[in-house]
């Protein structure tokens, strides 16, 4: 409805043309990424000469760049624990920040915001020392804890925004109806912030999946290698067995979940910036 009335008044063609022009380099790069991973081209030529699946050998031939499945498993563990911890702690923490009359609430809110604004890199040395001291250095748990901690301020603030948009009266009505505060939260309030939870969950997954710095530095052991680190290791240009097309294939393999998630959830991700509007 809205769409058709817009095209009637304004032609979309100029907008599409400009957007298309700006996006073109990206499209070309992605296209060649995909094409190159499935083909061979003669040296010095860009045009592929034959179709092949040999660049995808890394999926079963671990002698090429290492075992990709262990890295995938590690990445999935990191991403999913990120989703779970972020959702559980943000949905409860955000509610507390939005609704409960906590002591030092304003201080909490402000410090959470400061945490969010803090560049993770500057914390690395301190985090390293803490992990080393607690014996969590070079372990998945350590990476999860640190990554989760850095993710939470964002999650709590986002969820607080969504909770703020839920009318107080709904909770009062629930309490009057005889429900406990917990039941009210779980059965009446939580469903109202579902768009926020979905968006935050996807965001947490993408963030965990894409994390490179923390696992690289805090868990350098081969057992805890995640896909981003694996990808980097697959691309040491000086190595004798360096194969650029295999690197591209690993790259696609690594990007694929992100693309799928984004295509499926793009509308819901935008919810985060709407701050609680129901969609």
């Amino acid at each position, binding site marked *: 409805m809205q769409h058709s009335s817009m095209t009637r008044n304004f032609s979309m063609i100029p907008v599409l043309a400009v957007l298309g022009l700006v996006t073109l380099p990206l499209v070309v790069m992605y296209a060649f990424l995909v094409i190159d991973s499935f083909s061979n081209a003669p040296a010095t030529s860009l045009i592929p000469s034959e179709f092949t699946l040999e660049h995808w050998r890394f999926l079963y031939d671990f002698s090429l760049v290492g075992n990709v499945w262990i890295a995938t498993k590690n990445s999935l563990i990191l991403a999913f624990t990120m989703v779970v911890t972020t959702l559980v702690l943000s949905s409860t923490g955000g509610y507390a920040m939005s609704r409960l009359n906590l002591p030092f609430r304003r201080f909490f809110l402000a410090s959470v915001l400061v945490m969010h604004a803090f560049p993770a890199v500057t914390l690395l040395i301190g985090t390293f020392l803490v992990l080393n001291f607690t014996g969590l250095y070079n372990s998945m748990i350590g990476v999860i804890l640190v990554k989760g901690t850095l993710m939470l301020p964002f999650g709590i603030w986002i969820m607080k925004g969504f909770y703020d948009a839920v009318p107080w*009266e709904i909770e009062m009505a629930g309490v*009057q109806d*005889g429900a406990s505060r917990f039941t009210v939260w779980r059965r009446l309030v939580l469903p109202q912030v579902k768009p926020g939870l979905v968006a935050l969950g996807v965001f947490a997954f993408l963030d965990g999946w894409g994390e490179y710095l923390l696992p690289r530095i805090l868990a350098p052991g081969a057992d805890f290698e995640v896909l981003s680190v694996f990808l980097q290791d697959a691309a040491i240009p000086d190595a004798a067995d360096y194969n650029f097309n295999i690197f591209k294939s690993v790259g696609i393999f690594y990007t694929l979940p992100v693309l799928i998630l984004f295509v499926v959830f793009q509308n819901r991700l935008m919810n985060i910036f709407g701050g609680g509007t129901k969609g």
Partner: protein
Amino acid sequence: MQLTLDKFTKSFGDTEVIADMDLTVRDGEMLALLGPSGCGKSTTLFAIAGIHRVSGGRILFGDRDVSDLPSQKRNVGVVFQNYALYPHMSVAENIAFPLEVAGQDRATIKREVQAIAELVHIEKLLNRKPAELSGGQQQRVALARAIVRKPAVLLLDEPLANLDAKLRLEMRSEIRRIQQETGITAILVTHDQVEAMSMCDRVAIMNEGEILQIDSPTEMYRAPVSRFVAGFLGNPPITFVEGVTDGRGDVDLSGLKLPLPARLEALPAGRAVTLGIRPEHFGVARGLPVPGVVRFVEPQGRETLFDVALDNGAVLRSIQPVRQDLSVGDAVRFNLDTEAMLVFAETGARL
């Protein structure tokens, strides 16, 4: 169930909003808490609901002191101004929620929901979501949810404020019908005197955290205790004119003399009083003719409202059955029913 507020006090921080308020709502009665915004009527309502803690005094349901009970254990039904329906649940689920929380079995819940839906006439809407209902229908659902548990008291917080004029009229009588059919004790909070007077057995008029008068609507309209109460009730409102008694049974309105009602003829001279004249008592068949000039004519369909400027500059309102023989600027002599005039002392109390 009878509801009693015994020396109820509520303060927020250092500000005392309500001090030592006593109020009894009889079993099965519908009482209106009427007052301007900020008078403490909603605070009182929320204290009864248990949303606000009482700072002092007691709240009794029957003989049971509920002052320290949390909302969940008070069994109070509340209809909020914006209805507060649960948007993700269907109408049936909304109404069933209080029963579910109370742990009733499925068959009972289904039966109760059906019965209450029939009572409030929404049995055809049970599968809809709140967003798919009109304002009046949402109001009915909110009412059904509030009474499905058979609460000790039903509280209505400005329930008609969000409805358009026609629906408001309809829901006014509907709410009253449902209240009377269920025999539930109810408190209506409103700033609209028409709602309060038309829906309730008794009206408690509040100002600045204090109940000024509790009476039946007719009695309160006829015999308000103070100038504030008189000014709050009545549409079009009462007009006040200031004057001084002359000790001979008249009030001197600087340039105009009006006789006091017979019962007050003996007032001593030199007392500053305020006369309250309702529009229906000016322009009547019998009374004291008062000359004036029509300043404003407002046709209201069945009636016509006139603003008449008297010789001394005071403006009185007159409401009369429709007449088209007068227009602005005409000199008139309307009869004033001086016996029906309300007389207030300087303190605001009625004499």
